[in-house]
């Protein structure tokens, strides 16, 4: 057998194995300790400092996004320490890298709680990282502050969710389209838990509100060719698109959308994963005039936000932008501080007891914790991407929307959970 014939045998096999390995990344089984014995807390509160943990991915595919969250957490900690700390104690940060792997998140969370003895942990981004950490925080009875909008249908007494749940982002997004008289909506998303769940909710909403869903397409993560999906979109007769694509796929989708001659004034796309941070990478040209649904934009015109943006730029450079998850992370540290000060204790049970009604004048406006489901009341904002790459509010819910992660207050959602 010649070398190259041997090659011909070995190579197809190794390439296929590699292909499967690559596409399987991120699909690892969730793990976490399932023991239920809550160990006595080892948090030290007698000194003049208290430890807290920051757990974000600083390596791997999620590092792009999570680094920005870490930056704003660091900023908040620095501000709080400069202003005298929490209950007179300086914050001592124990920083860990979640490495974009749910299993690593679970391991590091356990390490932060049991060997570093932190009073609370701030971080996580993907739903799979949160789901992997949840059993750890419940079994060790500690606290996690999770700063990203997510698919809802979850509520743990050991997690505070400071990003939007579905009724504060997706439902208002659909409300807006309905208000604009759109009747035929096309759904496009990445093929994983958040878009699938979000689209289930949108389908239920559409059915109850006389909107027709004319197409529902999912692209595998890292999908790079959207010609077929955009062809389907064009053929569907849709008058609006609801986009739950994640990461790089957005770039390929919007370039294709633009190249075939579609435009936001006739066929607007509402996106829930594109914030200020992502606009530059997609190219302002390609998304100008498109819509987003969030609870915070850098352009919010309030003194609190002006101070936040200014402080952030002073710390990290004038070319940096602030986005919704960054703001939610920033607010999460202050919310924890306010809860601790209300409870006058760092103890988990005391904080849980004091949580209800604790509020913070965040850059997005005043946010208030709901003690029952541990989410926070937030104002929903629909924004339009401007030629400057920033997002400008075009519609607001006017007042904070009470969080409703299980959508119990919506009749049309009865069949969902």
């Amino acid at each position, binding site marked *: 057998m010649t070398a190259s014939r041997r090659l011909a045998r070995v190579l197809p096999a190794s390439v296929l194995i590699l292909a499967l390995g690559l*596409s399987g990344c991120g699909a690892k089984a969730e793990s976490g300790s399932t023991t239920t014995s809550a160990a006595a807390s080892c948090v030290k509160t007698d000194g003049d400092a208290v430890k807290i943990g920051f757990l974000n991915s600083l390596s791997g595919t999620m590092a792009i996004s999570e680094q920005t969250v870490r930056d704003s957490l660091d900023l908040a900690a620095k501000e709080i320490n400069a202003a005298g700390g929490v209950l007179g104690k300086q914050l001592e940060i124990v920083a860990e890298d979640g490495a974009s792997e749910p299993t690593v998140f679970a391991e590091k969370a356990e390490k932060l709680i049991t060997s570093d003895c932190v009073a609370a942990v701030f971080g996580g981004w993907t739903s799979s990282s949160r789901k992997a950490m949840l059993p750890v925080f419940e079994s060790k009875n500690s606290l996690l502050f999770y700063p990203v909008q997510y698919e809802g249908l979850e509520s743990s007494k050991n997690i505070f969710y400071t990003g939007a749940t579905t009724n504060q982002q997706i439902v208002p997004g659909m409300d807006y389209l309905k208000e604009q008289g759109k009747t035929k909506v096309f759904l496009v998303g990445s093929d994983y838990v958040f878009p699938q769940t979000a689209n289930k909710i949108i389908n239920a909403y559409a059915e109850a509100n006389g909107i027709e869903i004319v197409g529902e397409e999912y692209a595998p993560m*890292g999908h*790079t*060719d959207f010609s077929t999906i955009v062809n389907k979109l064009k053929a569907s007769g849709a008058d609006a698109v609801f986009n739950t694509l994640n990461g790089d796929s957005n770039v390929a989708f919007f370039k294709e959308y633009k*190249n075939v001659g579609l435009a936001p004034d006739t066929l607007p796309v509402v996106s829930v994963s594109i914030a200020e941070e992502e606009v530059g990478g997609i190219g302002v040209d390609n998304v100008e005039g498109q819509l987003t649904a969030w609870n915070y934009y850098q352009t919010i015109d309030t003194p609190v936000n002006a101070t936040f943006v200014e402080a952030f730029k002073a710390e990290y450079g004038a070319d940096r932008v602030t986005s919704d998850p960054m703001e939610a992370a920033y607010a999460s540290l202050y919310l924890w501080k306010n809860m601790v000060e209300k409870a006058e204790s760092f103890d988990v049970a005391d904080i849980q007891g004091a949580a209800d009604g604790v509020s913070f004048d965040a850059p997005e406006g005043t946010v208030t914790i709901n003690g029952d489901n541990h989410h926070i009341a937030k104002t929903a904002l629909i924004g339009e991407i401007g030629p400057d790459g920033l997002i400008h509010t075009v519609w607001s819910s006017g007042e904070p929307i009470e969080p409703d992660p299980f959508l119990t207050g919506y009749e049309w959602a009865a069949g969902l959970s």
Partner: protein
Amino acid sequence: MEVIMSQLFAGLSLGSVLLLAALGLALTFGQMGVINMAHGEFMLAGAYTAYVMQGIFADAGVSLMLSLVVGFLVGGTLGLLLEMTLIHRMYDRPLDTLLVTWGVALVLQQAARNIFGAPNVDVRAPEWLKGAVDILGLAVPRTRLFIIALAIACVVVLALVLKLTPLGRRIRAVVQNRSLAEASGISTKATDRLTFFIGSGLASIAGVALTLLGSIGPTLGTNYIVDAFLVVVVGGIGQIKGAVIAAFALGILQATIEYSTTASIAKVLVFVAIVAFLQARPQGLVSVRQRGIA
């Protein structure tokens, strides 16, 4: 009818992207037997070259055309360096090469992250590539036409080089029988280096072209490397012709299945089809006849 036409075009267009990504690989992997996992990162180098060029030349059209040339040189040089430092030590050790180049790929990705930052960057398309043209009632994006034309041009030039030039003759001689070529006085070392230079340069040209379609970030290469290998494996090791047929066949297959099902299912079915095909024909579509004693 319109659906068939538009999907046929989508398939051709996808095929041309695959072909561009795979062409350089067909040369290095197909002709030299080097499993170069860093091939995707040479595409990355091309994409970032386009980004840098755009910072230098204000006119997007000028910078795009220059990027194709400069990108070829940048990618080729990177490839040459890789060949001279690492790969030439490991001919006939395909699995070791796979590991080494995989490591190089990770290093290059991180280098891109350190130099250009982790977030994606944007390369503006020139005005004359924006929008769509009407062909037989079909709105065809200009960027896609450009990429099809570029893919055809690359194939034609490469085929001519292989067929008509002394270098091409040497490359073909080395592919057919390395020892005999060496015995006939061909410097296989120099030939290998040049082949690798051209192959890596072609990857960078693909990278420049892809800035018109997709995202430009440190992970760009990993998005295409698997597809590129599939094209070469299906096409058959050692022949450019095979890669061309395979790229368009896979493109059209993917587009057709995707239209009637979903993108995920289409990907799975294409994989299944490839596995089945390789069971029946492990040597790929077109195989080169070896003249060896073994």
